[in-house]
């Protein structure tokens, strides 16, 4: 379910961001990425957290993956990735909310449901105290799987490209 479980590859802390003036368009290779780690073993550095006044530069992210972000095709892929992730999130959230809000609405419209009991436990108690939790976990698991799949598809596209 989680493709990168075994490759934690710690992302560098936001060290000196380097300036990120937009490099020439299209497939020119990334211009001397100053803060991409070289082969040298990483040294342990004492960093202080960013200060309020010291950070007005336009981007605080190190320049990685320039290709995917700078080229037009790359941009297109990214936009479509964001769209599909948003659509997925909205569908799962919407479905869950409809069921969740549906319960009190149903109980208000048909108050007689409250009188049905299972082993002396009234149905609303069963629904709200127990049954809703597997639903939450189910929605979450579904989302995690689909979101990873979207990312995998995106990565395959970039690799081919």
């Amino acid at each position, binding site marked *: *379910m*989680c*493709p*990168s*479980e075994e*490759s*934690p*590859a*710690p*992302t560098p802390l*936001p060290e000196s961001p380097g300036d*990120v003036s937009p490099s020439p368009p299209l497939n020119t290779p990334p211009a001397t990425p100053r803060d991409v780690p070289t082969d040298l073993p990483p040294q*342990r550095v*004492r*960093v*202080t*957290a*960013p*200060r*309020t006044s010291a*950070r007005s530069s*336009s*981007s*605080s*992210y190190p320049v*990685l993956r320039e290709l*995917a*972000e700078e080229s037009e095709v790359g*941009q297109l892929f*990214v936009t479509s*990735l*964001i769209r599909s992730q948003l659509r997925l*999130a909205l569908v*799962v*959230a919407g479905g869950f909310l409809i069921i*969740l*809000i549906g319960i*009190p609405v149903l109980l208000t419209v048909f108050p007689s449901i409250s009188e049905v*009991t299972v082993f*002396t*436990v*009234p149905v*609303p*108690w069963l629904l*709200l*105290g127990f049954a*809703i*939790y*597997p639903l*939450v*976990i189910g*929605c*979450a698991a579904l*989302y*995690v799987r689909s*979101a*990873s799949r979207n990312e995998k598809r*995106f*990565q395959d596209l*970039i690799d081919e490209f």
Partner: protein
Amino acid sequence: MNSELIPSAAIGMNPVVGYAALILVALSTVLIGIYGLRISRTTGDFYVASRTVRPWWNASAIGGEYLSAASFLGVAGLILISGVDALWFPIGYTAGYLMLLLFVAAPLRRSGAYTIPDFAQARLDSLLVRRVTSMLVIVVGWLYIVPQLHGAALTVRITTGLPSWVGPVAVVVVVALSVMTGGMRSITFVQAFQYWLKLTALAVPLVFILLRLGSEGMAVTARGAAFTTDLDITGQASLYSTISLVIALLFGTLGLPHVLVRFYTNPDGASARQTTLIVLGLLSVFYLFPVAYGILGRIYTPELAAAGTADSTVLLLPGRIFDGVPGDLLSALVTAGAFAAFLSTTSGLVVSLAGVVSQEFFSGSVQGFRRAAVLSALIPLVFALLTDTQALAGSVGSVFAFTASTICPLLLLAIWWTGLTDIGAVAGMLTGAALCGGSILAAALLGGEAADFPWLQQPALWTVPAAFLVTILVSRATGHRRPRNTARVLARLHSPETL
């Protein structure tokens, strides 16, 4: 509820038990904190544990930090009072993490920022947004610590008979010590330990209670009477109140500072998702227990509802079913769990607040972090000592409504919408803060009459959409201020790290 001293003898709890439990939890917390100090050396360790915490550890830590006084004591208390309506609280607390998973977890982790204000500034390239966000985060954090300290006051009073101020002061001292010494790294260990402590503290006594009730043929649900008895002193929740509460809890979780900072300790976006999934499992299992205590409380401790001390249901129930030494031992376990709840949530909040405060005012060094930690813990202590205890689950609910109306629109739109501008974000946050804060204040001032104005008591259903709407409209109107690197930042937030 009044904060007079209730003699512990009157409610049948052995004070020695209380002392032992409190001292044990405090000691183990400080010890694990000191152990953490030996392995946390850099600023990165202090703030976010250098982002190397594994999903299971991290998920336990998130659970430990999140399950506050409101969850441990408040849920059972509210079920005792208002029955089935109270079940929405644990649902909201849990499902809030679903929303977090869907909309925030992975992108926020990938942003690479330390705190919410950091994220806001990086995304919108604006110091103004940073300032406003910092102020809101600090306010939310303080508001959320106060009920924890109220819970500590209640627990210490009931279990030891000591005066009310002892509990909050003890919590603040232990938290300040452990946060100052170890930062986030040691806090992660402490929090993870405390999730399992809290779960055990509720599960073991419940198992014994049910075994005893079952073997002696005593009532478990009193043939369903437990569910239908009307102990309510506040009247039934309307459909509007229920939905508004659910919205507040679902979308308030996204914006809680101590919840968000925890996600930065994941190594990457995918593991942030994995962690959240595990958290959902841990929370779902946990909430079965307070619900069970609440139901049993409706049979064995119903008089607490009228006495206004419903929040002590969990603490008193074991003593009602078992006499003598077994009762004392089980009570000690529950008390330890409750104390763990205040300690862990408070320390989580203090860590995240200290992160924000130290960056804002103390230039973000380790020394500054320590000073900020003391400051972040002392100010809510003063509030807590000056104000009176209220129903824990309810007062925490108001904080959720406030974050849902302020920080949630900022986060969601910053992550998913290219059109957001700094002015739009600030306008939305201030609108949400004014509307929601104003409603909660008005409801508090109205006191008992507020029951006639559910839209003031539970404002989230209209203040959250209002905040979103203002953010979007103002951003549209100030479209020229859209940061030029928006596309690049969004790409960073959403593309996998392995690229």
